[in-house]
């Protein structure tokens, strides 16, 4: 009964406006409310390439299009962009781009390492074609400039939302693959430049030393509940539930200074 198929049947036919679109130059009439991706499926295409997450984050569905009488190249993600009447579109599911191979253990987090891996950086003509074509509105030219200036942190920040769709590389006068460079930069910043987080290492060390083993052993000994025979281990499960219910909850409003009153199974000197 709770089945959207049944629901659909109950709905009166909605007379939906159709608009003409041109998929790789060929005309199809599709419902005006569809995304490019669903419009192509409506037209009869079955995707193998060109569709991934269908949610605007994987970069598989980069699409370029033009409108008649308008010289601008427009771009969008096929899974996020609604069709427009008379758009001439094609997807660019793949565009060759070289990625430098480097030994992660050996890099130290210096701009020179990025320059050495990607010397084409310095061919940038500041034409801004990359920024114009980016479907995520990322200031691509600016992050390229930041890298050239050795400001890796700024480049990491500017490029953070990049979904690696590759459109910038299709338009680059300097023939670079900006997004691969930005990826290297973000990793250098994350691992070698950003302030370290010693509390993580302390906790890892405590776990490795067996600090929590006793406490874990005790709860594990209570076992589990068989979903199809819920009374089988009832006594233990009741104990487990009791432990669960009495564990102290951190409130939503706390800041980093908060510590629970109950110090059971915690670590001294953990910060």
């Amino acid at each position, binding site marked *: 009964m709770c089945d959207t198929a049944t629901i659909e049947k109950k709905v009166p036919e909605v007379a939906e406006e159709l608009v003409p679109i041109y998929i790789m130059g060929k005309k199809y009439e599709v419902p005006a409310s569809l995304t490019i991706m669903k419009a192509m499926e409506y037209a009869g295409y079955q995707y193998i390439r060109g569709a991934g997450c269908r949610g605007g984050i994987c970069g598989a569905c980069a699409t370029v299009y033009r409108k008649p009488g308008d010289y601008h190249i427009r771009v969008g993600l096929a899974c996020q962009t609604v069709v427009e009447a008379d758009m001439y579109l094609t997807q660019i599911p793949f565009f060759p781009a070289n990625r430098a191979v480097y030994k992660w253990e050996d890099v130290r987090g210096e701009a020179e390492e990025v320059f050495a891996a990607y010397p084409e950086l310095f061919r940038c003509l500041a034409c801004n074609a990359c920024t114009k074509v980016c479907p995520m509105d990322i200031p691509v030219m600016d992050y390229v400039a930041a890298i050239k200036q050795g400001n890796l942190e700024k480049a990491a920040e500017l490029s953070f939302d990049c979904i690696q769709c590759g459109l910038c590389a299709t338009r680059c006068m300097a023939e670079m693959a900006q997004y691969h460079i930005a990826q290297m930069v973000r990793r250098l910043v994350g691992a070698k430049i*950003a302030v370290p987080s010693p509390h993580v290492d302390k906790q890892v060390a405590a776990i490795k030393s067996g600090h929590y083993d006793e406490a874990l052993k005790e709860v594990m000994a209570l076992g589990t509940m068989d979903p199809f025979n819920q009374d089988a281990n009832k006594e233990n499960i009741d104990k487990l539930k009791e432990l669960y219910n009495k564990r102290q909850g951190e409130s939503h409003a706390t800041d980093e200074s908060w510590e629970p009153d109950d110090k059971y199974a915690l670590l001294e000197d953990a910060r």
Partner: protein
Amino acid sequence: MPYPDSLKELIKKVEATRPARVEKKKAGGEFPALNLDERKGVLEQFHPDVKEEGRREIKIGPNKGYRICHEMVDLVEARSRVNPDKVDLSKPDYTTDVLIIGGGGAGTSAALLAQEQGAKVIIATKLRHGDANTMMAEGGIQAATKGWKDSPYYHYLDIMGGGHFTNVPELVSTLSKEAPDVIRWLLSLGCNFSKFEDGTLKTMHGGGTSRKRMHFAADITGAEMMRTVRDEARNRIDDISVIEFSPAVELIMNDKGACAGAVLYNMETAEYLVIKAKSVVMATGGSGRLHVQNFMTTNHYGATADGIVMAYRAGVPLCFLHTIQYHPTGVIFPEQAEGILITEKFRGAGANLVNVDGNQFVFEREPRDVEAACIIRECVNVNKGVPTPTGKFGIWLDSPMLDVMFGEGYVKKEFPGKHILFSRFGIDIGVEPMLIYPTLHYQNGGLEFKDDGSTKIPGFYVAGEVGGGIHGENRLMGNSLLDIMVYGRISGKNAAQYAMNGVVDGELTLDHVRKYHQEIDESGIETDRISPMLLPDYTLEHVKAKQYSAEYEGTLR
């Protein structure tokens, strides 16, 4: 696409009841919450999981008699895509130490660890490397990294409670103990988790957490994790090769009973290819694209339960597939955003759910499953759903009342991501409400495996959403990004060690597939279904009606 006039008219009814609803809230009044009996009643009648007519017994294989959703049973009770007699196993197209099936977060972390053991690795994946559910996770990853207030002990309790105490204790213990090391590892690979200036990682609560332990990378946590491990895999190109658009369709065994590779299907050339491997890691992720009971989904295009099907044919048992996680509030209109999650925080802040008349029908802070069931009931039984221009029904989530209660601009400030998403369609969710419906989100169960990643088949390992038992009957947010990394690493490492040390070489065979076909015939199942599905079929009837000579192999043309 902004709301059309038909919906704008209906929004007036929401606006008409809003002042009274806000007044009531200000006076401390709430729509009455259901008592335990009422909850049970609505769940039994309307929750897609609990509904008996939504499922049936599997007639064959290791879990004969297990009742799970029809869509999954349909795939299990189906024939192979390929006739085993036609596959030439004598001349493998590729040979490797470790074969990893699925290039998401679990598969890629498995590849890195296997390579570190000295193994040659092939990742075979269905779409591009990284086109995966991992990429889509926004919220965060749990780990008890803050020893002054948290530890694997509290994490363990939270996971068990979330899973209704049905989880496999060893899997949970390993998950919670390995969690901080996973964070350390990801940081060391250059993953940018959000931090305070002093380096302390930022953490927040998720549903069911007793301590704030959800780490995040702004609001694209999964993408940041995925692109980091993928980038490192690309650095190790000499040892890790990736074969894209070539999903596995069948496991290959050897005559000693060990797993020894897989048959791949090159979707672009329609060739079947044989990979011989010393060990195999299954990391194919979830199954949202089965659209169980026709629900929309948050999952990526390739989430079609392939790993379940292949491993089941080879004899690996299933567990916890009787529960599926539905998120109560997915966008149902505008169509471009269909299935996308609307965070629980809207309801937490007090936004009402209202029907086509503008009336409340449920307390907005019922548990996820109850909330989902009530929304479904309102649409299909009470017939008070809001009809969408795309021919479906939804319910209003009254976000503008938050602006009325907490001041203009509140929604924009507190929910910037969703505000921007809707503003792209010409909708200001501080002024107009959102249309939502429950959406298929996570496959709680899967293949049975042990906490060293192994299964009952020698040489066959499991990692990620395709596995079952860690989360019991219900996964808590933030624990699956964790589980794919913990068990990806463990499975990768152990699969490599098995490949380098303990392998029993033998004659390659697909006999298990032949036997499975025989079992289908003997059990009286009459079907020409084939599986795994590989991709969903979204071709519409008006097209199909004219495809006079098209041949569909299952869902693929």
